[in-house]
């Protein structure tokens, strides 16, 4: 424990060492004198012998074991003193690092939480989603039938467990406001496969699906907390869903929810007919691969099941299955966007690192003399190297800690601005893994960027370095090498910043083009809301079902129409600009021209209330639109849009032609006559080109949920609460959801685009600012280094203008190179995000030119500031310098 004691009694041991060496010296001198040497000569001999006390002391100190720890403290103290002394540099470097690490950690947390981290289910990596694909709906992944489920369970031996579910929205009534609840009907094995347990009561068992005892439900933890005040005696209580009482049998484990944000799970009890229906595409199916089984084997097994199924059930036509890991099937739509953001954040980190490297380089050479002095005083090479590393690591850690703070803020910001339907949003947080990730990143950055200047400093000859500064050739050569490295870093930073700027401009243009995209209908003074599962409609589809339903529909519409401020009201069966569309199988178009391509074509269907087109402001091109007379008592009518008329008949004059959207019980087409043609409108999504669509009268069909569209006279925002209160007054059990103005609807439907645009712009801003600091720093540094040279030039007759040209010319060249490299790289990279763009090409020339001009002009200004300083150099002062 010698060394430990010595660590704390350092001063004491220093004194002892000094005394010991001095004793030696003096004894030697005394001995020489005793041998007859003159005292002065003796002293000189001894001092020469010793060759300086400091190096001996240093070597002695280093021979002790506690030395490493002891000097580490010293180095840390020294480093923090140096960092405090150069506060400007420290702040610049720490902020640079913090921004880079912060942006990267934040995005990495988000990416990790949403697309990398395994889903929170048991063995989730082995769970695959199985879908069916038919020739009729080639674009869709459909659910499978009960027949398929049985076959897969029996024949797909690579699966250990297979279960299925179907999501529905049900109206919860009872205590409190009626709300819409996400409910999943689940088959047996569902909870087992996901590895869920119950915290209270029990989960579903196979017997629960038996007719007569199937009205039982497992509720989620959050429903238990909010609706039942976490009552431990909840099993046995009743949950009224769509007026049907269900007995609660248990509460699922906290935080469990599947497939999306389900609040209750009920047994799946199909009717006998559904069980045998080969075209029942309703079962969302998840299978769990056996340990060690490959997905390829499963796919082969699924293929052979599908082959057999097509033979046994020719009515399904061309049929195949696909399987996809659960994780990728649940995040496929956000993956590309997230990867792009991750790339952008990595660019920011790279820029930050390059910036830090040039800052440290510049400072490292500024401190060469200090290092040389320390070397001359006996500091060993390793010690100097370590000293430099300790300093840069300390700096990196400061940056890292700040970065973590920034990352936490960034994640909060993301959660605030991300569209609420972003997958796994609630799981996003900065976790401990990422904490380590950022600490490690910063340490690596510290070591990397500390080691180059530190090595350089430790390798140099103290003699040369101390002599330098008077412009020796050696110094010039070294600073030449240094400025080449500095220039390379500037080029890199500018290139990366340029890519970020281009990316952010493209995303922002996309957002702006979408916001200004004419949707084909009037969006002002328009309010919309959903009435899911309209109350008052009989749940059994009897003979007079259509009539009862349309009476109810009329009642609701009239009720809303009489509210003061409401001008007109209409309905659609699914929302406008919600990205939802419906395609019915078996569309037959009488007299259709052949499809231009081999791909099977289909059209979207929409059930609308009379005056829909008038209320929406969609122009009629031919014929008339639905009126109140197009109801269950008259023949079925249809309105098509221009795209549909052109696609199927090649003309707009199609009034009087007919199509069949469905077949009757005997499989015969039920024809509807075309009564009108309307202009194309973007009712599905602003991004999507209008696709062929036909409209049926809501009074002539069966409608599940209702989407009301209200044209108002005054500010639509103000009317919202009045409307929902009126509806609740008339129908106490009717939930009203998604109540919002069309402009807000548009803005929400562009949530992803906005998010990308905002985040990329933030990254581009940070990256750009950092790159500018880099340019400024390198040019300033080279000016400071060359003050003397500039002085000589001016003394020899160079005009300030020449000096300006010299400095800017040299400082600007790497910027230009950076822009060129950046442009080439951006052209290649933006092609990867082309699918996320709208109304602007990935290689949009104005964007590239504009970004280049922006970067060049601002970088020029950054060069000008130090250049002006150079211009004002007084030759006399410069030559006297040093």
């Amino acid at each position, binding site marked *: 424990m010698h*060394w430990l004691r010595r660590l704390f009694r350092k001063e004491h041991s220093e004194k*002892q060492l000094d005394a010991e060496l001095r*004793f*030696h010296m003096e004894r030697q001198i005394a001995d020489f004198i005793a041998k007859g040497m003159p005292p002065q000569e003796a002293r000189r001999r001894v001092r020469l012998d010793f060759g300086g006390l400091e190096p001996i002391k240093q*070597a002695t100190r280093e021979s002790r074991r506690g030395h490493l720890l002891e000097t580490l403290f010293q180095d840390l103290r020294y480093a923090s003193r140096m960092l405090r002394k150069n506060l400007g540099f420290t702040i610049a470097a720490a902020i640079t690092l913090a921004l880079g690490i912060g942006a990267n950690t934040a995005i990495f947390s988000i990416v990790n939480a949403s697309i990398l981290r395994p889903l929170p289910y048991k063995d989730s990596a082995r769970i695959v989603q199985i879908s069916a694909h038919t020739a009729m709906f080639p674009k869709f992944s459909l659910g499978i039938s009960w027949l398929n489920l049985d076959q897969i369970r029996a024949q797909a031996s690579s699966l250990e467990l297979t279960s299925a579910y179907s999501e529905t929205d049900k109206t919860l009534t009872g205590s409190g406001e009626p709300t819409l609840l996400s409910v999943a009907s689940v088959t047996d094995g569902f909870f087992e496969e996901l590895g869920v347990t119950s915290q209270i009561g029990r989960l579903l068992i196979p017997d629960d699906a038996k007719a007569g005892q199937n009205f039982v439900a497992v509720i989620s933890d959050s429903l238990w907390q909010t609706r039942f005040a976490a009552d431990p005696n909840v099993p046995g209580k009743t949950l009224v869903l769509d007026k049907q009482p269900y007995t609660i049998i248990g509460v699922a484990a906290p935080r469990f929810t599947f497939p999306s944000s389900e609040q209750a799970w009920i047994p799946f009890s199909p009717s006998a007919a559904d069980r045998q229906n080969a075209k029942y595409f309703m079962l969302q199916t998840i299978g769990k691969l056996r340990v060690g089984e490959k997905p390829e084997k499963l796919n082969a097994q699924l293929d052979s099941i599908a082959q057999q199924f097509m033979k046994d059930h020719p009515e399904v036509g061309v049929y195949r299955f696909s399987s996809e890991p659960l994780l990728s099937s649940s995040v496929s739509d956000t993956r590309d966007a997230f990867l792009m953001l991750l790339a952008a954040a990595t660019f920011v980190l790279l820029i930050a690192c390059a910036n830090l490297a040039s800052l440290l380089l510049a400072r490292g050479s500024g401190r060469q003399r200090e290092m040389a002095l320390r070397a001359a005083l006996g500091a060993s090479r390793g010690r100097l190297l370590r000293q430099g590393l300790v300093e840069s690591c300390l700096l990196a850690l400061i940056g890292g800690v700040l970065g973590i703070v920034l990352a936490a803020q960034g994640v909060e910001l993301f959660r605030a601005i991300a569209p609420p339907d972003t997958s796994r949003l609630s799981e996003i947080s900065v976790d401990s893994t990422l904490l380590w990730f950022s600490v490690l990143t910063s340490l690596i950055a510290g070591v990397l960027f500390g080691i180059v200047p530190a090595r350089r400093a430790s390798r140099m000859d103290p003699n040369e370095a101390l002599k330098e500064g008077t412009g020796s050739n050696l110094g010039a050569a070294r600073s030449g090498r240094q400025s080449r490295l500095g220039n390379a870093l500037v080029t890199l930073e500018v290139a990366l910043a340029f890519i970020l700027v281009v990316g952010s401009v493209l995303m922002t243009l996309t957002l702006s083009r979408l916001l200004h995209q004419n949707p084909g209908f009037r969006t002002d003074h328009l309010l919309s809301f959903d009435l899911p599962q309209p109350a008052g409609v009989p749940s059994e589809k009897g003979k007079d079902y259509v009539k009862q339903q349309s009476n109810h529909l009329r009642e609701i519409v009239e009720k809303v129409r009489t509210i003061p401020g409401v001008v007109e009201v209409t309905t659609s069966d699914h929302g406008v600009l919600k990205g939802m569309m419906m395609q019915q199988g078996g569309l037959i178009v009488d007299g259709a021209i052949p499809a231009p391509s081999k791909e099977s074509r289909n059209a979207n269907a929409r059930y609308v209330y009379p005056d829909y087109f008038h209320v929406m402001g969609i122009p009629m091109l031919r014929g008339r639109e639905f009126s109140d007379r197009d109801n269950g008592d008259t023949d079925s009518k249809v309105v098509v849009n221009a795209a549909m008329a052109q696609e199927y008949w090649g003309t707009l004059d199609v009034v009087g032609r007919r199509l069949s959207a469905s077949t009757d019980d005997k499989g015969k087409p039920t024809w509807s006559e075309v009564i009108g043609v309307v202009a194309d409108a973007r009712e599905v999504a602003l991004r999507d080109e209008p696709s062929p669509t036909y409209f049926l009268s809501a009074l002539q069909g069966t409608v599940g949920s209702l989407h009301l569209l209200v044209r108002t006279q005054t500010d639509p925002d103000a009317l919202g609460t009045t409307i929902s209160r009126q509806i609740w007054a008339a129908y106490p059990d009717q939930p009203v959801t998604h109540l919002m103005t069309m402009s807000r609807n548009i803005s929400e439907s562009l949530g992803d685009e906005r998010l990308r645009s905002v985040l990329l712009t933030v990254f581009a801003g940070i990256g750009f600012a950092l790159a500018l600091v880099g340019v400024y720093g390198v040019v300033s540094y080279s000016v400071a280094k060359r003050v003397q040279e500039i002085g000589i030039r001016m003394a020899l007759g160079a005009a300030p203008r020449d000096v300006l040209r010299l400095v800017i010319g040299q400082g600007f060249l790497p910027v230009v190179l950076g822009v060129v490299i950046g442009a080439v790289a951006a052209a290649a990279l933006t092609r990867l995000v082309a699918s996320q763009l709208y109304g602007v090409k990935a290689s949009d020339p104005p964007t590239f030119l504009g970004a280049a001009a922006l970067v060049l002009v601002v970088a020029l200004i950054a060069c000008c500031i130090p250049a002006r300083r150079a211009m004002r150099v007084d030759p006399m002062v410069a030559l006297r310098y040093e």
Partner: protein
Amino acid sequence: MAQEKSEFLKGTLDMLILKVVALGPIHGYAISQRIQQISKDFFQVPQGSLYPALHRLEDRGWLSADWRESETGRDAKFYTLTRKGRRQLETELVYWERLSDAVAMILRTAE
């Protein structure tokens, strides 16, 4: 040349110091004098090697040190061999004998 000499010494210096200290408590200057005298001026231990070696040996617990009055009346740091140091010295001596025997044998056979 001087550089090479001290390098050569490095392996043996520790052993020589232990051997000298084994004779009784002694301070650094006397150690260097004693080594020089006994080797008839063949070994001149530079201070830059002596003190790091002494501190290293002390650090390993082979030497203990205390301050006591020297022959001139001034306080000096005296080193004493510890029991652990004595064992170390014995090991090193055995090793050294085997090493020198081996070297001598090779030199003789190679003649």
